[in-house]
């Protein structure tokens, strides 16, 4: 029982990352009709916003310590951060410790700006082109973006820890009447899950309860009619592209402490996220969220030793097996709409 609960928590946590990325993907597809293979790269850039903030807060000046030697036997250069020298060691180290949450403040405008530049500068020229062309150009863009990141940050993963107070684990076992340490789960992963729920809720609320959201939803249902009403739907869709980029970026920022960011992390999530979107139904926002959590949970359960003993290798293929089954039984995905990607 404790193993099942642990994998359920794992699944919710994985699912929240899948859902956040897939939400942005399907938002772009639903509004602009673009299959954006560069979306994983936006997630990766978000994670590197956290890395950048960490580096910014740890900008240092060097002093020479004549009493110590470096690896070549020269007097040691000792680095001290500006933040600690300006705010004192206690406040300074606390600010550095909170680099990841602080990076959210930077990531939102940066990601919206990147989204705008991507959409206006490149992707808008491919709106009326076949989906295959869109996939090719956005996949190429993803490779360019990850090579740029690699050029500046290298190929090695960069540790980006969570604030100290979130580094431990929470003992769910005691809370649920199990033995101590039977079900423990990292605090930051719980934070990630809660954060995802808030972002997903905020996106839905924005689309559901604001005039802007109402127009966007109308545009998603019938772009031409909304245009005939004199509403500049293209402008709103461009803004939605920026919002989708920001959602992917925020997912990346908060993911940085879970696995050290590297330039390739976007590609690792991209294929899975596309499967999530297809399973959920192309262009369906609730479908993306539902499929994200469902596939995350199934993937976690498939990794259990008892399951792997019965079906060796199932952990590597479960998502694709489920995708095939769902697409065979429900060709439009779990919550897909008629007419989307069927022309």
């Amino acid at each position, binding site marked *: 029982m*404790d*193993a099942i609960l*642990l*994998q359920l928590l*794992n*699944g919710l*946590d*994985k699912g929240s990352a899948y859902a956040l990325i897939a939400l942005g993907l399907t938002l772009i597809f639903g509004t602009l009709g673009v299959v954006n293979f560069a979306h994983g790269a936006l997630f990766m850039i978000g994670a590197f916003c956290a890395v950048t903030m960490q580096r910014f807060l740890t900008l240092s000046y060097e002093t020479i310590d004549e009493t*110590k030697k*470096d*690896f*070549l036997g020269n007097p*040691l250069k000792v680095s001290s951060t500006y933040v600690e020298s300006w705010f004192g060691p206690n406040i300074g180290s606390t600010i550095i410790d909170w680099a990841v949450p602080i990076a959210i403040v930077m990531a939102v405008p940066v990601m919206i700006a990147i989204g705008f530049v991507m959409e206006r500068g490149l992707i808008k020229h491919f709106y009326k082109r076949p989906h295959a062309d869109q996939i090719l150009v956005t996949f190429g863009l993803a490779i360019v973006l990850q090579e740029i990141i*690699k050029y500046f940050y*290298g*190929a*090695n*993963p*960069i*540790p980006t*820890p969570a604030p100290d107070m979130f*580094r*431990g*684990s929470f003992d769910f076992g005691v809370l649920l009447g199990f033995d101590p*340490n*039977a*079900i*423990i*789960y*990292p605090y*930051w*992963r719980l934070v990630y899950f809660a954060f995802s729920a808030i972002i997903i809720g905020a996106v839905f609320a924005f689309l559901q309860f604001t005039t802007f959201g109402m127009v966007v939803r109308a545009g998603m249902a019938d772009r031409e009619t909304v245009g005939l009403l004199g509403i500049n739907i293209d402008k709103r869709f461009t803004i939605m592209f920026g919002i989708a980029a920001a959602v992917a970026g925020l997912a990346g920022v908060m993911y940085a402490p*879970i*696995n*050290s960011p*590297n330039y*390739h*992390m976007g590609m*690792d999530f991209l294929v899975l996220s596309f499967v999530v979107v297809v399973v959920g139904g192309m262009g369906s926002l609730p479908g993306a969220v539902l499929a994200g959590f469902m596939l995350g949970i199934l*993937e*976690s359960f498939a*990794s*259990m*030793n008892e399951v*792997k003993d019965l079906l060796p290798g199932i*952990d*590597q293929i479960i998502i694709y097996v489920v995708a095939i089954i769902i697409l065979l039984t429900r060709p439009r995905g779990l919550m897909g709409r008629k007419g989307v990607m069927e022309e």
Partner: protein
Amino acid sequence: MSKMNLTRRGVLQTGAVAGAGLALPTYLSAAAHSGFTNAPTGDTVTLGFNVPQTGPYADEGADELRAFELAVEHLNGGGDGGMLNTFSSKALEGNGIMGKKVQYVTGDTQTKSDAARASAKSMIEKDGAIMISGGSSSGVAVAVQGLCQEAGVIFMAGLTHSNDTTGKDKKANGFRHFFNAYMSAAALAPVLKNLYGDDRAAYHLTADYTWGWTQQESIQAATEAMGWSTINDVRTPLAATDFSSYIAPVLNSGADVLVLNHYGGNMVNSLTNAVQFGLRDKQVNGKNFEIVVPLYSELMAKGAGQNIKGIVGSQNWDWKLENQMGDRYAGTNAFVQSFGTKYGFPPSQAAQTCYAQTLLYADAVARAGSFNPCAVGEALAGFEFDGLGNGPTLYRADDHQCFKDVLVVRGAEDPSDEFNLVEIVEVTPAEQVTYDPEHPMFAGGALGECNPGA
């Protein structure tokens, strides 16, 4: 004026012969002229350095390339000479190799076997490389070693740790300086017993490819021989990034040691996940839960950050070796001085093995008095040397594996700077990690005959 008689059959025959000639790899046509592939004819000789320049091991590849550049500089008489000054063999004089200036070409393995073979093939056929070296993966090493055997050039392996490279996949034209999974296990087991006792239950997470399998097999055998039990061995996909669903079952498995048979990004992520799940703070069977990472690298330690503290593993070499363990490891400081002065930071173990391999190849050519790969192979096989940073070393003739001391290391608790993330726990003498050439873990292959490409 003569009249040409063009017949359909004649054109086809001529075309077939010309086509076959064009299709013939240049290394075969070159060999036909001089007895072996890419025999140097001018006043230069070309070496091919095949390293990951893109992909997840690109940083390690960049460090290998720095070491190769430095080795070429030293071979040609530039710089301070580095380990040429400490190398026990004095056949090299700083005037290139046998008087020919050394030049090099590079290839990008991308850490993919097919890409690595393609780049090595291109360096051999188009650039005339007479030796191929480098790499950061056992899959790549085995693939390129096979290609070099077919092409008739020497392969001086870079970072490859699978038993198979000098085990079932060994080749007469291939030579490995780096240690292997068996040696890691043989060095680690006694230290683990001292640190954690002989009554432990281990849970293995293993990267699902050749290196992971041989690493797991070696560690399991060595730890079980000293009394540990093995609770489970779970294979994890090489492409996995989040290991939480593999870590979770460890919590209540009854295991009190987690062995992470992972390397590179896999290791950074699995270790990070294990620490996040509180395994380092856990008590099982009345003992502190421990994590072991059999194969360490400086870049991995950097990637794992604070999570690496106190984690035990093994290394082929460390830049602090001579300072901490004495003159036996002469050459280390000379190399660190050369490398550090040129690049501003200490070399990695991947860099050291690549630098040593280049010098060893050049020295073997000089001692053999020939670039013929079979003569070079003969000079390397059974060669005993010293002064390249690892202490007295033997290039065993039976399998072309180097036998030397192995380092057991641990993540530093309080690193003084970014270059001191790893501390040396113990150096295990070569005798303790030496095995029989017919050992079952290395069985199934044969060196075969040396191929000069003629």
